[in-house]
């Protein structure tokens, strides 16, 4: 062996994020000490990012099967049957650390990466969503990060031409130095034309398509698996740069290549680049692979085997071609002006063998690389249960309208229009419901079928109670999908936590996974893909835990779908899931508690009743399919009155509350009790009859009107215009794009 043949040391292993025990384990499995390239490959494959070594033990407990599931976790993305021979392919993935270091490129490459995961499976991406968490609005870095991340997401998604139609943006001081950027992509494919990554056919050529390999992002997977410190700001040069044009050409060429029956298997070079793609393809096929590194297209002179194998340059794919398909493939790459190179072949050795200048520079058995990564049962300490605060301690003496205005003008509830207007939401011309409501809805091109998509997580609930908080995230996503009329099908998750080597953090992880598992089972929305992002800490301070749920649902006819916008005067508004005599609601840890009562401590969040979630969801879908409701909104942050205001603003229709004065308590108005929806109906008789049949509690609360006001009882009246102005102005003012 040539360069890198010298033996590595435990210190070098530590620098790559491996422990001394792990280094010993590698030496023992190999029967020798690895060289630098080999150690780099092990460190990437055994990183938290690739091996899930801290979370795997718990991830295994999640429900992953169901009759709708075609492919669960383990492939590039999950695949779910949506009927008519079609499948939805989707996944969410984090790009937290890179986005903090360089917000535009970090976010852009996050979008590019998740899109490759989806089109790699033969699916055309049709929707993008983003779950974003930034620090406190007044923190010195927040504006810079929001502005960079949002333009980065738009910069990539708009250019490649996939609509960005959903997601969420939240602010919390725990993200001051460690923002979260989770990107979700959803694609469509024929259910019988899904491409997997397992290589087959000994001797088949292995080809490299797309951008040349540079020194960018070397060891990104390891970086994503380590705590963050001030020094990392100087790591800027390792951040990858996205090229959405190359991404678009790669996407079109890959889809064309797959349609031409030239491909045996295909894998994108994402985290850990050529290492993870070559290892996964050959190991899943139970085979081996030989790669000649001299054939890998490189962008910079003098790259070492170590650098080539661990580069995370963007817009690259690895493909095993059918033996007779080289000419077909060549024609497709010529059309799209893409470089490609035959860099190796499939073998039956069970080894990954790398050569450079005719010498072997690495020779690793695949089995230990993928199967012998340590699995840790890290000590975990459950988050101690918190008590709720009594409403009496929280309720302030003020008119409902004043409280509502303050809440709608707070960072919790204010309009995210400033964010989503920077995203192209209409390209592909299949957008039915776009950002700003509950779930977004896209038409399955050429049919009447629709896919509803959402991401959700209320991190302040999870921080207070990981089990209930994670259940709530699933329940809220379920309600958001349901509120459009679609049936929830399956989930993807992005588990964002601090350092799992701390027992309290591990306790959050375990509690969240248990809660998520319980909810996904009860609501029949199995987990089909996901991503784990740990070590989200800066100088020892962990983020508020955010197990983000991405969910996909299907509606058979988009003409039946409804939005949150009120449609006309004279309709009756009901709270579904609330009995007529409910006087009070759950204010502990609510937006009201934080904004109005100024209570910023973690207190018990509302609990989730999965049976009610399912029952109420079925009733709502029935109402929508029978055209008994004209507008539906899930009740979440800010409670019933915030939901009501959002519906009124969206439709520019007024509302008169019809309840008695003593019923209009702040707990009733702003409580965040779960399993509830607000609906508008032009046929109250039929709606009530159906409620009786389904055995659902409902509360009639208001009538819509054409007076452009919210009449909240007695003389408490506020115009929609005034509400709009507080709701719409907060974010533009924060970002300095609005004259005050």
């Amino acid at each position, binding site marked *: 062996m040539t360069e890198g043949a010298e033996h590595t040391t435990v210190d070098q292993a530590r620098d790559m994020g491996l422990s001394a025990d792990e280094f010993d384990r590698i030496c023992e499995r190999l029967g020798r000490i690895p060289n630098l390239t080999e150690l780099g490959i092990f460190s990437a494959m055994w990183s938290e990012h690739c091996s899930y070594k801290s979370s795997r033990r718990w991830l295994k407990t999640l429900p992953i099967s169901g009759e709708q599931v075609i492919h669960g976790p383990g492939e590039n993305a999950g695949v779910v049957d949506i009927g008519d021979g079609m499948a939805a392919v989707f996944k969410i993935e984090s790009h937290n650390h890179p986005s903090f270091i360089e917000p535009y490129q970090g976010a852009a490459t996050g979008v590019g990466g998740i899109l490759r995961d989806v089109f790699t499976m033969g699916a055309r991406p049709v929707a993008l969503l983003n779950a974003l968490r930034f620090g406190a609005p007044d923190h010195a870095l927040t504006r810079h990060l929001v502005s960079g991340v949002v333009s980065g997401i738009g910069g990539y998604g*708009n250019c490649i031409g996939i609509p960005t139609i959903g997601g969420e943006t939240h602010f919390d001081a725990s993200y001051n130095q460690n923002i979260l950027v989770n990107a979700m992509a959803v694609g469509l494919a024929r259910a019988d034309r899904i491409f997997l990554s397992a290589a087959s056919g000994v001797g088949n050529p292995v080809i490299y398509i797309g951008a040349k390999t540079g020194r960018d992002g070397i060891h990104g997977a390891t970086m994503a698996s380590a705590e963050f410190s001030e020094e990392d700001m100087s790591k800027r040069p390792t951040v990858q740069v996205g090229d959405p*044009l190359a991404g*678009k050409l790669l996407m079109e060429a890959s889809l064309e290549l797959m349609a031409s029956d030239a491909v045996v298997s295909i894998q994108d070079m994402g985290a850990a680049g050529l290492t993870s793609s070559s290892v996964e393809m050959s190991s899943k096929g139970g085979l081996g692979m030989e790669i000649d590194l001299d054939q890998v297209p490189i962008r910079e002179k003098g790259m070492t085997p170590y650098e080539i194998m661990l580069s995370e340059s963007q817009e690259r794919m690895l493909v095993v071609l059918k033996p007779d398909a080289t000419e077909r493939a060549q024609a497709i790459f010529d059309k799209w002006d893409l470089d490609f190179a035959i860099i190796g072949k499939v073998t039956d050795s069970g080894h990954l063998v790398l050569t450079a200048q005719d010498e072997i520079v690495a020779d690793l058995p695949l089995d230990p690389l993928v199967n012998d990564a340590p699995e840790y049962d890290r000590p975990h300490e459950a988050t101690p249960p918190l008590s709720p605060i009594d409403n009496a301690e929280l309720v302030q003496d003020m008119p409902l309208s004043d409280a509502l205005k303050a809440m709608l003008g707070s960072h919790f509830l204010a309009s995210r229009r400033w964010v989503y207007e*920077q995203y*192209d*939401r209409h*390209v592909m*011309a299949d957008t039915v419901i776009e950002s700003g409501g509950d779930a977004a809805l896209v038409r399955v091109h050429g049919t009447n079928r629709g896919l509803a998509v959402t991401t959700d997580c209320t991190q302040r609930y999870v921080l207070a109670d990981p089990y209930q908080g994670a259940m709530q995230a699933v329940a809220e996503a379920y309600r958001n999908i349901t509120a459009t009329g679609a049936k929830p099908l399956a989930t993807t998750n992005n588990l964002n936590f601090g350092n799992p080597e701390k027992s309290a953090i591990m306790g959050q992880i375990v509690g969240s996974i248990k809660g998520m598992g319980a909810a996904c089972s009860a609501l029949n929305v199995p987990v089909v893909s996901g991503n784990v992002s740990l070590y989200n800490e800066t100088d020892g301070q962990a983020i508020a835990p955010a197990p983000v749920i991405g969910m996909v649902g299907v509606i058979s006819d988009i003409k039946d779908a409804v939005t949150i916008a009120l449609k006309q005067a004279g309709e009756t508004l009901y709270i579904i899931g609330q009995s007529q005599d409910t006087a009070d609601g759950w204010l502990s840890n609510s937006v009201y508690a934080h904004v109005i009562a100024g209570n910023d401590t973690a207190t018990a969040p509302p609990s989730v009743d999965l049976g009610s979630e399912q029952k109420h969801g079925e009733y709502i879908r029935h109402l929508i399919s029978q055209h008994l409701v004209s507008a539906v909104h899930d009740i979440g942050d800010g409670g019933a009155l915030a939901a009501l205001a959002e519906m009124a603003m969206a439709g520019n229709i007024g509302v008169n509350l019809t309840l008695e004065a003593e019923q209009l308590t702040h707990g009733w108005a702003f409580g965040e009790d779960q399993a509830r929806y607000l609906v508008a109906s032009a046929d109250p008789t039929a709606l009530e009859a159906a409620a009786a049949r389904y055995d659902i509690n409902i509360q009639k609360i208001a009538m819509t009107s054409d007076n452009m006001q919210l009449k909240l009882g007695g003389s408490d009246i506020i115009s929609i215009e005034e509400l709009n102005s507080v709701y719409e102005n907060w974010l533009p003012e924060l970002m300095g794009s609005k004259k005050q």
Partner: protein
Amino acid sequence: MANVAVISFPGSNCDRDIITAVKHITGTDPAQYWHKETSMDKHDLVILPGGFSFGDYLRCGAIAARSPIMDEMMEHVWRGGYVLGICNGFQILTEAGILPGTLMRNKQLQFVCRDVMLTIHQTESNAILAQCKEQMQLQIPVAHNEGNYFADPDTLKKMADKGQIAVTYTNTGAENYNPNGAINDIAGVTSENGRVLGLMPHPERKAEDIHGGQDGRLLLTSVIEAAS
């Protein structure tokens, strides 16, 4: 019905959308051309779709305006053929010198995607808009980063005299009715012969019920009928 063609460039991403919209109107698939092609059949109307041709690198539309198919395109224009350039297609037309002026970065330095209100002018002097009503109001979305139309005062005056300022953002009283700072609220311009129209808004995105309106279809139908 007009015989329509659509040209795609690497990075075009609204080609499928406009093809779908045209097919809904004419009942037939428009002809499609790739930027590398060097010959083009005769068509009544050639459409340059939106997107990010060549990644918007160098300048939006600059590289596309110099691709092989553009020679055929110029010939079509000289023959008096009709052309519709949407968004990036408009940028390509100005870069190719077929339409006057240029499209600069949005004044607020951000990509903008939302519905805008448009007014159609000069329907008598522009053959491509002959089927539209003068002062017609249309609600159609924009989605661009470089839609800030600019031309020097002399050019603007010449354009106004010749009736080339054909589409403007309607001043609805809303603070941001003009989404990009375009001079004189210009959203679309025509060529001197009135047969080439460049338009920042995307009519193909308001062409079906699910788009929340059909004003775009109305405009596209008028253009296709005018070219027939």
